Structures are given as C-alpha cells and as structure tokens.
C-alpha cells in the first residue's frame, strides 16, 4: 500500500471534493464536515464518473407515509442513473450484494511526516508548515 498526498488541508475545505488520478485510477476525495473520504470515481454499474453527482441524504421508509432522511451529505448519487452509494463505505443502497464502490481511507497527516521519510513529493514544493490530506492506495 502506498500513500499519496492529495492536497494541503486548506485547499480541501469542508463541503468540497477533489478529483485526481492515482496510478491510472480515477479517485475523488471528499471533505465532509472535517472528515475525509476517498472513493473510486467510477460507478460500478455502467462506469460514469460517479463522484460528479450530488451529495444527498438517505431517504428510508419503515412504513408507507413514514419517511426518514438521514446521512445528509454522505450519500453520493451517480450523475447518470442515480444509483446511491455511502461515501463512508462505498456501499450501494440499490444492490449492496453485487455493487460496491472501492473506498480508500483518507486522513490528515502533518507536513513534517509527508516531507520526511519515504513520502517525498517529486512534483510540488511541499510547505512543511501545512497539514496534508493523504490517501492510502
């Protein structure tokens, strides 16, 4: 497993997402209220750029007429066919047995840790004073 620096934390504020390609794989990283999540940016159904869809909540119903709306801002809705996935886990709510989006753990590391040691950035000048969003892939 390799670690990939995504962005300094102040370039990925809450409510934003960043698209990038890592080792040929399209990835999207989200900041949801200060928590970071990484997802494969490809819908397992027909291959749309999944993470270009809107972030919505989860509408569920125990009985007709009883509607519960939870996980606000934590469900990604595919821009093509509207399939819904939990960005925390990549789980599908349409067909969880067959379809799942690959989820990648994302977290924040201090700049000193990504500059020192094995995690050397080759393409950008890394500012040591910042914290960085890092994805494990």
């Amino acid at each position, binding site marked *: 497993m390799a670690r990939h620096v995504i962005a300094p934390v102040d370039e990925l504020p809450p409510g934003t997402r960043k698209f990038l*390609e890592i080792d040929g794989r399209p990835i999207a990283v989200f900041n949801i209220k200060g928590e970071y999540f990484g997802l494969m940016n490809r819908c397992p159904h027909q291959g749309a750029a999944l993470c270009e869809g809107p972030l919505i909540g989860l509408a569920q119903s125990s009985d007709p007429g009883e509607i519960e709306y939870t996980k606000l801002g934590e469900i990604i809705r595919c821009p093509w*066919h509207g399939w819904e996935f939990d960005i925390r886990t990549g789980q599908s709510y349409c067909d969880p047995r067959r379809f799942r989006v690959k989820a990648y753990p994302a977290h924040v590391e201090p700049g000193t840790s990504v500059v020192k040691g094995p995690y050397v950035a080759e393409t950008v000048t890394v500012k040591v004073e910042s914290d960085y969003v890092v994805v494990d892939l």
Partner: protein
Amino acid sequence: MNIQFRESQEAASPLISKTAIADCDIHPARATRTELYPYLAKRWQHHLDVYGVHAYQGMMEGPPYPKAQPNASRRDAWPPEGGPQGSSLSFMQKQLLDPNNVQLGVLNPLNTGQGIRNHELSAALCSAINDWQIDKWTSKDKRLKASIVVGNEDGLSAAAEIRERAGDKNFVQVLLLSRNVEPLGQRRYWPIYQAAEEAGLPVGVHAFGFGGNPITPSGWPSYYIEEMVGHSQCQQSALASLVLEGVFERFPKLKMVMIEAGFGWAPSLAWRLDKVWQRLRSEVPHVKRPPSEYIREQVWWTTQPMEDPERREDLFDVINWIGWDRLLFATDYPHWDYDEPSRVLPAGVTEANREAFYLGNAKKLYGIN
C-alpha cells in the same frame, strides 16, 4: 514515485479503435428559447411571445412528473459553453460521438411542436425543428441523421411535411410519440403512415408525449417511477392498436420503430394478441394474419432502456424471439437513463449478432452505407 498530486485528465483520448456503433436515440436540444425563431414566420414568433403553446395536457406548463435529474439529463452533460444538456454539437461530439465511435447517430428532438392543440402552430414548429436539425446538426456532422418531426394530431399536415422532406438524405425516419390523443392505429394517423411508406421511411414511436390522457391505462399515478414503467404499457397499447386497426395490413411496407420503452414485453404481448385473435378474429376481419406475424415483420426496437434481468439467458430468450436483426442500439444521450455502449450487452453473444445489435441493423433499416 509514491506520492502523486495532479489534476485528473478531463478528456480521454479518442478511442477510435472501438468498434463502430449506431446510436438510434439521441436528443438534441435548443440552447435558447428563441433558437427556432429564424425558422418561424413572424406571425408564429409573435404568437409564441404572446400566447406560448398549449398542450393537450390540461393546466400544465411543463411535464406532469419531475424527471429525476435537471432536464432529465446526465449531470455531466452540461455543455461547458452553457445552455441545456444536448444543445452543443461540439460537446456532443466530445462526450458521445468520438469516444464511442458512433458512426450513425439518429436525432429525435423532444419538446417540439408535437402534441399541441393549435394545429397550425404545431405544423409550423415541427417544420422549424426540421430545418433547425439540418442547420445545426446534420449539415455540420455527417454521422448525424435527423427524424422528421410532424404535427402528429393532424395527419394531413403531417403527411405534407413528410412528403416535403422525402428524399432528403438528412432525414432517416418519421418521429411520433407514444402518448397521443388516440391510440396510434386510429384513422386520423393513417395519412402519416401512408406518406412514410411512400417515402420509404420508418416511423419511430418515441416514449413520452402529452395526449391529454392519464399517463397509465389505470389513471394518474403518484410517482415518476410509475410514469417510467408506464412507457412500456403505453407502447403496448400503441402496438396493439396498430395491429388491430389494420395499419400493418393496409401498409405492408411500413416499418415501425419502438423507441425507449424496452422490448422485454414484446413476446408476451404478441402471444396474448395471437391467442385472443384466434378467438375473436371475426371482430377484426381486416387483420388477416396472426398479430405476431405483423409485429415480427414490421417492428424494430431500440435498446435503451436495455433490459437487465438477473440471468442473461432470460435476456437472450427474449431477443431470440424478437430476432437479433430487430434491435437497434441506443444510448438516449444526454438523458439520465443513458445506456453505456460497452456495458449493456452481456458476454456470450456471437460476433455477427453483436455487430448487428450495435450497427448493422440500424444501417440496414435507415439505409446508411
């Protein structure tokens, strides 16, 4: 290198090595409300500014059900230069035609002059849409071919529009919608079939339209999802009407294309029609052969929304009944229920059938070399 920090590549390289395909249901849109004005007489421009259009649907400005996504479209299909999805040729080329190696794209404009109460305005708008299709689309990209949009509720003016466009290589079919004032086999529509048959053009029946009737045979449903399912019920009643009113018998060279309503229901409809026809044929003596024979000989089906049963063998059973020579691949671009060409057909299809499914049947039906 184990650290990467780069922007994703927006434009994939054009995959010209992909197998060529036809896309038999593409929806071009107008970029602005007044984009048709250059093709309309001043009298109608004025009319639209003052009165707008009145559909058969009562008290409705827009469609009676919300469409799941803005303009019922893919969220990644907004053209970068602005305007609604499907309104930019250059973006359509970049997003649909080039990467999928679309060799033939059949345009089916919606929200035209079809199904509106003022028949003169209906005819003027349909004619304008047809001129616009040539100017904006087919003359600028030879892969694209247009459907002749006609004022469907006035058979005579519709037939006149077909005759005027007959022989024009920009057009490959006549376009009707599935929801009309009456079932499509009724006599008011016969002039359309006669003119289409004379012109050698297939008649496409696209799902949707506003005939003023409830969207399902059992009344107005509560949800858009019921409208979506209702398209297949609507096409079934349209097809039954075409058979039982004797349209196929009267116009034996007429070719009909059922667009965007699935095809999995076709065998069971034909079986049921055959069975009741055996018992009730004296009511419709003009229907001289079992209904399934007309259907198999004179009807084609676009694939989107592609049937997706759990067992691929079920899909193959249906297609084997319909015939591998009868399906026309379609994406429905830019609409949200778009079918991705590389993902819709399961493995296990012979090379000849794949080629027919994706391209050969369409080229043959629409007369494209």
